[in-house]
């Protein structure tokens, strides 16, 4: 995972070209297979696409977009979900009922379908993807936090803090958040991975990032169009890299869950 992050941050300093700078690419370099195959060029380790872009460079640049969306999307989702969960659990009543009804309806649909629908309405764009992801992802956070608030609320020491007149905000921050923080960390780790996959899929369908800032999914989608003319490396390598990233994240998530969950020890 550190490798993936380092690549995304510093990678652009080492790639042979900036694949989205027109002055940097040469049409003469197009259709080159990976370096280890016959006809490959040592300069382009993973080959080039139909416009002469170096695949390794597109992967490095694409992973920046993908990771950005995964991480920022998760932070946004987390913020919305936790806030709504706190409100829902702490104040109860009508707000709680409303939020939970919306959550129920949303949970009866697969996230992918909601995301496809939202993107078809909002149109392509990185901000729109972040909005869609946050709208599909908040429910799980809200539920965890709400459940915890409800169970904490019943305990006597909370009553006690109320009696001595601590403000609501302090009670929540001091007594509720510490109890849910581990679940949220684990959930967020997994969420980054699943958001990267969702974004890749949306982009593959043409409902994701704009053409000017391609993510890994978008690169695969472009590559798919030339798959049948034998240029398999254009789409297969970026897809493989998505798997590597998400695989790493899921392993980390599994590890964190086992480490942080006292019940399993």
């Amino acid at each position, binding site marked *: 995972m550190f490798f993936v992050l380092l690549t995304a941050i510093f990678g652009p300093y080492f790639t042979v070209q900036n694949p989205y700078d027109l002055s940097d690419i040469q049409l003469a370099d197009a259709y080159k297979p990976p370096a280890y195959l016959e006809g490959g060029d040592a300069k382009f380790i993973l080959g080039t696409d139909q416009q002469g872009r170096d695949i390794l460079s597109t992967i490095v640049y694409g992973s920046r977009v993908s990771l950005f969306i995964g991480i920022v999307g998760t932070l946004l989702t987390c913020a919305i979900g936790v806030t709504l969960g706190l409100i829902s659990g702490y104040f109860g009543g009508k707000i709680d009922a409303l939020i939970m009804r919306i959550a129920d309806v949303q949970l009866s649909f697969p996230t992918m379908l909601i995301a496809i629908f939202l993107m078809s309405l909002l149109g392509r764009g990185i901000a729109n993807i972040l909005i869609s992801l946050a709208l599909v992802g908040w429910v799980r956070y809200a539920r965890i936090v709400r459940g915890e608030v409800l169970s904490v609320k019943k305990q006597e020491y909370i009553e006690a803090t109320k009696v001595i007149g601590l403000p609501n905000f302090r009670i929540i921050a001091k007594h509720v958040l510490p109890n849910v923080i581990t679940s949220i960390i684990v959930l967020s780790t997994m969420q980054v991975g699943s958001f990267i996959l969702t974004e890749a899929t949306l982009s593959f369908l043409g409902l994701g990032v704009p053409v000017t800032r391609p993510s890994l999914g978008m690169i695969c989608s472009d590559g798919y169009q030339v798959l049948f003319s034998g240029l398999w490396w254009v789409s297969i390598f970026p897809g493989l890299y*998505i798997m590597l990233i998400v695989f790493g994240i899921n392993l980390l998530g599994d590890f964190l869950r086992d480490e942080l969950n006292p019940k399993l020890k």
Partner: protein
Amino acid sequence: MAQYLVKRIMQLIMVLFIVSLLIFVFTSVLGNPVYLMVRENASEEEIQKAMEYLGLDKPLPVQYGRFVKNALKGDFGMSYMYHRSALQLILERFPATLEVVIVAMLLTVIIGIPLGVFSGAFPKSRFSRIVMVSSIAGISLPSFWIGMVMILVFSLNLGILPVSGRGAVGSILGIETSLATVDGWRHIILPAITLAVQNIASIIRLTRGGMQENMRQDYIKFARAKGVPRRKVLFGHALKNTMIPVVTIFGLQLGSLIAFTTITETIFAWPGMGKLLIDAINSSDRPIISAYILFVAVMYVFINFVVDILYTIIDPRIDLNN
């Protein structure tokens, strides 16, 4: 039971109401299909005519009222692109989608559950470790990538399976389906595997988790001590108690499979309703999008209903009225 049914039906109506409202608001506020229908340099008059043809010149509440009235009759309007009834188009494409989903579900059960049972029962064995690592890999793979690799390996390199399309259809019980012909099976197998990989992986993980928990219980030790054969302990005792979460996830997966057919069908040019949806989105074909979403919403409520019924069969202690 009757009480439960009433509750479910009320829930269905509520879900449909919210969904229809959302669909209506979003589709009417965003994107204007008129400009897709008329010529590029159409005059005001032509645009006005097209708006009237589509009923877009009326105020929004009137449009919603008409939308609901027609939807109840199963009429979502004519598709802007195909000039045919939207619901009819979806129903025509539905069997194609359903058959891929069914084959994918079968693969999930046949491969996923036994592997999950095995790796849960013998977590230390080398085979279980391989299964676990591959299942994490499985949930980390983008499904379109699996599809592309399948096409590359089996169709382009080995040339043993067709790249796209649905192949010949035959008829089983009066329904046209690819499952009736050999050619149909040859076409269906790659999309079905592509669709199933992630499901298999998550079913393995779930079954394994449940099995591990159950294997530690006393009744399993007791059964073993009593001399019940190992296979019967695994599949009869332990698996039975793992089934509740598995059935839940199964229901959810059936739903997400239908969503993911949009991707699989796009890759394999499979003429199902998922591809219809993507095409409709790309051409702002509102009636098809609305009809699709409502159709799928009804289907999900139905799936949840069936899952609930299954609970009571698996575990008689569950009372649906609570």
